[in-house]
């Protein structure tokens, strides 16, 4: 590998490339993850006990989760809610992506893309905070619903999972729209027209022509959205209540309130496994590879 680099760039640049890449992949990407796994497999000990008889590999930190009904239920709620967020996001994004890629004139599409990109540039915290104001107990949404007479008393949107789900769809929607748009855009419009001429209705055209073509985009969008949702700390912290905690919040508490890093590392590793598992499942279902995802 180094020989190819050297042939193209000469020895000094080739060494710089290899060195920089090596430092990043080893010191920043790989070793910290391995260290986290190692931590998760060791008991939490006092400094004096490290290296002593109690120091050794154990699964005790993982057993904790399965013995704690509250943590276990939060783990599964995080999984289930993230799947829900991903499906909702896909549902909301698909018509938009299709419109941008196939129905809109080039001018309309350019304008819409610019309008889409602007919120995407804005801080996730601020986007979430804007929903905090909108959904507040005495906030604008309750006020409108009261005025319209649709409800008699204000609703506590921020007192359960509703606010968290809505906020997540909002925060991560563009990670779904763009891969979908890119995938649908590469579909030849003649295929859609051909399907229509042969008598296929709108739904059938989508189901048989557009969606199969957009598979890599759907897979990428779903993987990204799920990962962001399951790993989100900001949205549940801002829009949730103590009763609607997210798994990331439990992890945070192990580190900064419980002071048990080994336990926290085990929970963090489980979250990582959850995301990898989801990714593997989606890649298998949609029959796409890693190269398709990075597009």
């Amino acid at each position, binding site marked *: 590998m180094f020989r*190819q*680099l050297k042939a*193209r*760039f*000469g020895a*000094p*640049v080739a060494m*710089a*490339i290899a060195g920089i890449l090596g430092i*990043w*992949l080893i010191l*920043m*990407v790989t070793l*910290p*993850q391995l*260290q986290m796994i190692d*931590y998760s497999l060791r008991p939490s000990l006092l400094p004096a006990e490290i290296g002593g008889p109690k120091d050794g590999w154990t699964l005790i930190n993982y057993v904790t989760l399965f013995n704690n009904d509250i943590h276990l239920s939060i783990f599964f709620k995080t999984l289930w809610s993230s799947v829900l967020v991903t499906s909702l996001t896909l549902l909301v994004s698909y*018509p938009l992506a299709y*419109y941008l890629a196939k129905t809109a004139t080039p001018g309309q599409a350019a304008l*819409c893309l*610019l*309008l889409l990109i602007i*919120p995407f*540039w*804005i*801080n*996730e915290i*601020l986007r979430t*905070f*804007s929903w*905090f*104001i*909108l959904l*507040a107990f*005495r*906030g*604008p949404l309750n006020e409108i619903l009261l005025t319209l007479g649709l409800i008699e008393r204000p609703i506590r949107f921020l007192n359960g999972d509703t606010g968290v789900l809505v906020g997540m769809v*909002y925060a991560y929607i563009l990670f779904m729209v763009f891969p979908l748009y890119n995938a649908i855009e590469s579909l030849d419009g003649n295929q859609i027209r051909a399907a229509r001429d042969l008598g296929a*209705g*709108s739904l059938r055209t989508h189901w048989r022509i557009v969606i199969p073509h957009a598979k890599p985009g759907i897979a990428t969008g779903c*993987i990204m959205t799920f*990962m962001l949702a*399951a*790993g*989100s*700390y900001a949205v549940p*912290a801002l829009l949730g209540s103590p009763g609607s905690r997210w798994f*990331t919040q439990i*992890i*945070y508490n192990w*580190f900064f309130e419980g002071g048990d890093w080994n336990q926290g*590392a085990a929970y*963090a590793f489980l*979250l*990582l496994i959850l995301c990898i598992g989801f*990714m593997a499942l989606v890649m298998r279902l949609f029959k796409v590879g*890693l*190269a398709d*995802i*990075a597009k």
Partner: protein
Amino acid sequence: MSAQRFFDWGLRLYIGLFFVYLFLPLAIMAVATFNDSRFPTITPWNGTTLKWFAELWADGRMWAALGNSLLVAGGVLCLAVPIGVASALFLTTVESRAKPFVYGLILSPLLTPGVIIGISTLIFWREFGVSGGTFLTVLGQATFISAYVMLMVMARLQRFDRTLERAALDLGATPWQAFRRVLLPFLKPAILSAAVIAFLQSFENYNTSLFVVGYDTTLTVYIASKVRTGLTPAVNALGLVLIVITILIAVVYELKRRRELKPKGV
């Protein structure tokens, strides 16, 4: 064709509603900045005021956090841009059986939740006696921002015509000269836009920073803590200022990018 037209109109209505959904919360947040109310809201309207900007200006901790964010973003640029460029060059040059593995490793930080990157960085550096702070925030953020830089530089590298490089070598240039005078100038626009994106990614990062900031709070972490404890419309004022700056950068960036995409001359 009336069913088709019905479908098209439905789609258009949907697009309209979607953009209302996208912008209404941000608009409400912006308007609430000017409401003379202790809690940020627009209902009820207690009178128009600019006092929350004054309060924001006087907030010393906000300025400290801003300074920290800029410091971190600068550090991330210094790490992520060289790393991203190096990995893009590596991936477009090397052909080997190990390449898919390296490629997967390079992409992995993008597919890892930000909190996990923060946690693993924190744990790893504890072994060397380094605790959370500006240094670890830079390292944690650069771990995944480098991969974004790589993707952007890679997109341009794939359009590079390698015969240009060979021509330079045939005309007597050394590999270093060919790299410095042919390849780098070609990559410059992509490197610049990657730097802009990397800066914003760093400035806005929350999930990774949360675990590694220690006491060196960044602006985004500060905003989140303000929302949860001590929320006043001064947070909106800060949000509004950041949104205006972000939109300016975004528009300039987009216009510049589009001009580059257009074919030059006729």
